[in-house]
């Protein structure tokens, strides 16, 4: 039974990672003015929001299942706080979880309305380090990192994230130059 918890821990982690990247890319494409006109902006936004929520959901599932795999020996507190006992491989994942939580939860309409936009936007930017740290966590927790498929897939996800991020940053820089 434990083995299945282990398999599910890995699979939920991978799916959460893919969802995180998808949310990020969706968000970047949505907000970057240089990626062309957006047809059906409501559709994009709604999907981006949904993906964000789904990511957080799968992360929570991933964490829960990892608790159930008693072989790993995690305590509940280890899910919430990195500890030297557990190591940074897991620790980065915990930090990524908190970052994702900060990104997604304040974006829930009710909460977001109460926040000044700048604050919300700053928090939302944490999505980028969240995805990066998830990648580090994925790579360091190791069991799959020896598989060629995994490392190639991870590289692909990184590439997919970097492109729109770069476009967005360049767009911002250009925008600033124009405004200046």
């Amino acid at each position: 039974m434990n083995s299945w918890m282990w398999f599910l821990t890995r699979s939920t982690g991978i799916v959460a990672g893919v969802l995180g990247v998808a949310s990020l890319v969706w968000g970047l494409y949505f907000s970057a003015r240089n990626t062309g006109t957006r047809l059906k902006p409501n559709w994009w936004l709604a999907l981006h929001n949904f993906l964000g929520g789904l990511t957080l959901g799968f992360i929570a599932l991933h964490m829960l299942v990892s608790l159930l795999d008693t072989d790993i020996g995690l305590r509940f507190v280890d899910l919430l706080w990195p500890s030297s006992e557990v190591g940074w491989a897991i620790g980065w994942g915990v930090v990524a979880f908190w970052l994702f939580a900060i990104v997604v939860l304040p974006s829930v309409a009710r909460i977001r309305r109460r926040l000044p936009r700048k604050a919300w936007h700053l928090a939302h930017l944490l999505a980028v380090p969240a995805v990066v740290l998830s990648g580090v966590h994925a790579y360091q927790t190791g069991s799959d990192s020896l598989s060629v498929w995994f490392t190639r897939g991870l590289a692909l996800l990184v590439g997919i994230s970097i492109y729109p991020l770069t476009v967005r940053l360049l767009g911002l820089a250009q925008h600033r130059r124009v405004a200046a």
Partner: protein
Amino acid sequence: MTTPHNTIGDRPIDPLLQHRLDQLIARAPLAAGSAVSPAPRLAGRRAKPARAAKLSALALSTVSTVMLAGLFAQHADNVDSIGFTTGTISDPVLPTATTAQTTPATVAATAPDTLVADGAYAGIADSNRWGNVQVQVVYSSGQITDVQIVQYPDGDNKSVRINARALPTLISESISAQRADVSTVSGATYTSVSYRVSLQSAIDNAKAAMGVGS
């Protein structure tokens, strides 16, 4: 009647339009939707945008999770054990009663059933959380004359480093035998052949060299 900014040219601005302009200027969050969205929500719009896409995302995620888990389970079953058996190097099937004719009691004594052609054979590889372990066995005149470790996991690779305060703990580091300076090594029974490449033989050689006697 209206304040100066409420005119376009000479004409008064429609109150609804005025309202919209006020909102944009104040950058107040819209009642529904996001501040980022440039298009205001139109009344009568479908209440659930992107519903199909959302459902497919959810379905795809769930299915992928289950399928990946199944893939891992399947792969785990296909893994062979570490080690090798004489005469059946190329056969990845786990030893049955007949193929358990593993190592001869003394290296020279018994002849194997089938004479394996001279050469180096890759042994059974094992893939687990630690990585890949593979041995290479060299046959000469039907006997194993050498065992080489072809590939074994790197000590500081990215395996899970977890220590629970109670059991179980994970071996996260392998201890260098030289650093540990042990007198003897306990391990699964090595054969006289695999002894030659074992840690124990290195220790024995060192003892012999030290003139501990022989």
